[in-house]
C-alpha cells in the first residue's frame, strides 16, 4: 500500500513538475533579461553595445517630465482597474445568479448571447465601439439625443469622457468572463444550504451574504486577482478605442508608456525599468489581496 501511494505521488509529481518547469522557464528568462537591461542604457543608439548604468532608468521613470506625468497616469490606471473589476464582478455575479435560477427557461439562448462580448474578436469590436462613441454619427449619442432627449456627449474629444468611453467598452468586454466563472462557482454550493436557510425564513440578502458570497469566494478570488492584474496591463482596448491616447495623449495607462517607449522610441532600457516598476506594484497588490482574502485557506476547513 505504501509503495502504491508513493507511485501515485510520483505520478502526480511527474505531471506537476514539467508544467511548472515550462511555466517558469517561459517567464524567467524574459524577466531576468528585462531586469538586467532595466539597469542599462539600451536604446536606439546603444542597441547592441549597451552598458549597465545603475539606477538611471528608474530615476527617469519617476522624474522624467512627461505630459501626462507618471503619477497622474498611475492614478488613472488604478481607477481604470478598480472600476473595471468592480463592474465586471458585480455584473458577472449578478447575471450568474439570475441565470442560475431554476425557473428560467431558454438558459442556453441567454448564455450564448451573454458570452458574445468575450467570444468576438477584440479588434473589430473595439473599433466598433469607437465608432459608436463618435459625436455626430455614433450610436450612443444618437440614442441619447433621439430616445432620451439628452445632449450628445463629446466622448472622444474630452479627457474625462474619453476615459469613461474606454471603461465602458472594457466593462462590456469583461463581464462575460466573470459571469462564466460565477456560474461555475455557484455550482459548488449545495442546494441544501439554501433550502435550510429558506426554512429558517432567511431573506435574499441574508442568503447572499452568508451563503453565496463566502462559498463562491475560493473560485472568484483567483479570477478577481488575475482579472485585476490583466486589467491593469490591458493596453489593447484603451489604445484602440482612444486611437492611441486621444485626446491629446490624455487617455493612457501605465503600460501605454511601456509600449510607446519600446515600440516608438526604442528606449528598451526605460521600458524595462517601467515594466519592473509595474511588476512590483502588482506584486504588492497581490500579496495584500491574497492575505486579505485568505485565498490559500479552505472553505469547509
Amino acid at each position, binding site marked *: 500500500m505504501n509503495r502504491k501511494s508513493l507511485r501515485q505521488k510520483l505520478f502526480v509529481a511527474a505531471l506537476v513538475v514539467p508544467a511548472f518547469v515550462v511555466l517558469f522557464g517561459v517567464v524567467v528568462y524574459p524577466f531576468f533579461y528585462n531586469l538586467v537591461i532595466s539597469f542599462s542604457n539600451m536604446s536606439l*543608439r546603444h542597441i547592441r553595445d549597451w552598458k549597465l548604468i545603475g539606477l538611471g532608468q528608474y530615476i527617469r521613470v519617476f522624474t522624467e517630465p512627461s505630459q501626462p506625468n507618471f503619477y497622474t497616469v498611475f492614478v488613472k490606471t488604478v481607477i481604470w482597474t478598480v472600476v473595471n473589476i468592480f463592474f465586471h464582478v458585480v455584473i458577472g455575479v449578478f447575471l450568474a445568479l439570475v441565470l442560475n435560477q431554476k425557473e428560467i427557461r431558454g438558459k442556453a439562448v441567454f448564455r450564448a448571447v451573454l458570452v458574445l462580448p468575450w467570444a468576438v474578436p477584440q479588434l473589430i469590436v473595439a473599433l466598433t465601439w469607437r465608432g459608436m462613441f463618435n459625436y455626430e454619427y455614433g450610436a450612443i449619442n444618437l440614442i441619447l439625443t433621439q430616445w432620451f432627449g439628452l445632449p450628445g456627449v463629446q466622448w472622444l474629444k474630452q479627457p474625462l469622457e474619453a476615459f469613461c468611453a474606454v471603461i465602458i467598452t472594457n466593462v462590456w468586454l469583461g463581464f462575460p468572463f466573470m459571469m462564466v466563472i460565477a456560474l461555475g462557482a455557484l455550482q459548488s454550493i449545495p442546494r441544501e444550504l439554501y433550502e435550510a436557510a429558506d426554512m429558517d425564513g432567511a431573506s435574499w440578502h441574508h442568503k447572499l451574504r452568508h451563503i453565496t458570497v463566502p462559498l463562491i469566494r475560493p473560485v472568484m478570488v483567483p479570477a478577481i486577482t488575475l482579472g485585476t492584474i490583466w486589467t491593469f496591463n490591458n493596453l489593447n482596448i484603451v489604445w484602440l478605442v482612444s486611437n492611441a491616447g486621444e485626446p*491629446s495623449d490624455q487617455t493612457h495607462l501605465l503600460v501605454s508608456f511601456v509600449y510607446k517607449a519600446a515600440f516608438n522610441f526604442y528606449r528598451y532600457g526605460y521600458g524595462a525599468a517601467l515594466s519592473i516598476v509595474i511588476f512590483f506594484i502588482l506584486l504588492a497588490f497581490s500579496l495584500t489581496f491574497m492575505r486579505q482574502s485568505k485565498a490559500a485557506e479552505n472553505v469547509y476547513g
Partner: protein
Amino acid sequence: MTPAGPPVSPGAQAPRPGSLALARLLPALLVASALLLAGCAHRAGETVRITIWHQDRIDIRVVLEKQIGRFMALHPGVKVEQLFKETEELRSGFIIAALAGQGPDIVYGPSDQVGPFETMQIILPLEGIFDSAWCASYDPLAMTWYKGHLYQVADKLGNHLTLVYNRKLVPVPPATDEEMITIGKRLTAPAGAGNGARYGLAWNYTEPFFFIPFLTGFGGWIMDGEGRPSLDTRATVDALRFIKDLRDVHRIIPNEADYEIADILFKDGNAGMIINGDWSWAGYRNAGLDIGVAPLPKIASTGLWCGTMVSPKGFSINANVTEEKKKLVIELIRYLMSEENQMESTRELYTMPTHMRVRGSEFVRNNEILRNSQIQIDHGRAMPVSPDLRAIWDAMRPSYQAVLAGTKTAEQAAHDMQELALQRIAEMNE
C-alpha cells in the same frame, strides 16, 4: 456513525484497468503527438528559401505573388516567400528578429524604416551592390541614402496624399483653398431624412501626417536643413488656424473625423471631397464612386501648393543574410525593380513607378490619375528618413489636438510642439 460513502456507482469501486491505463498514458500521448506534428511542420529540404517581409495591401500582394512566381520559374531550386505584416509591426518585428540574428532576407517598406534600421545596423549598405549606372535608370528619389550610404532601393513612389473628389458632387476640383472652401460650403448640409449631415470635405484631420499638406502650403516644414525640428514657426500657426477655421468658421468639415469616419462619409456620398493617399483610390472605385484624383490645392494667400510627404517604398537587405543567399537576394531585387515588372505593377495598381522608362511610357503619361499623382509628387517633399521623425509625430499630436479642442492657442501649440519634439528626440538619443 460510518459515513454513507460518496454516491458513486458500485462498479467504480473496482475500476477497470484499461481506462486508467489510458488515462495515465493520455498526457504522454498528447506531448508525443504535439512533438510529432510540430516536427512535421518543420521544413527540411535543399531548396534555398528567400523571405520578404512587407506591409503591402492585398492588391499589391497579389501582383507581387505573380512576379515572385515568375522569378521562381526562372530559378528552380529557389523558393521565395512573402509575409505581410502591418506597418508598425513590420518595423518592430524586423527589429526584434534581426537583433536576434534572424529575420527575413529582404524587408520592403517605406523609407522612414531606414532610419532606425541603420542606427541599429541591421540592414546592409547597398552602394557596393547596385552600381551607379543601374541606379541612374531610376528616379533619384527612389534611392534612399542615409548617413552617406545607400540603404534602400525603391520600385514605387507614393504614400502621398491627394485630393480625391466625388465627381457627382464636385464636377471640377478646386485649385486653391478659397475655391475649396466655396465648394465645401455649397455642399455642406445638415442631417436630413435617412442620412447624416453632409460635409464638403472630410479627412483624417486629427492625425499629424494629414496636417502636413497645409503646413507646407503655408510655407513650413517639420525639419530644418540640419534635421532638427522646426515646428515653432509662423507657418505652423497659420496652418493650425486654417484647419480650425475649416471646422469652426467655414464649417465644411465634420466635428470629429478619424480615418474611418472620413472614409465612410466619402463612400456614402456624405462628403464631396476627401484627402487621402494612393492606397485608397481602388477602394473608392470599388464602392461604386466616380472619383477623380487631383493635386491638393494652392493656398491663395501664400501662393504655395499644399505638398505632402512622398515616400519611396523599397527593398532593404537584412544584415544577417548569409553569403550564399546574397547573390540570389540581389538578383531578386533587380528582377522586381526591372522595367517589365514595374510596368505590370503600374498598370494594375496605379502606383507610381520609379524606373524612368516606365515613368515616361504612354500609359503613365496618358493616365489622368497617374498624371495628377505625379503633379502631387512634384509638389511634395521626400519623407525624412531620420528616426527623429517618430519623435516629431509624437510631439505634434497632443498640441495639435489641443488646438482643435480649443484648449490651446495656435501659437502656444506651435511652441509646445517644438519643445516636446526636442525633448523626445533627446530622450531617444541618450
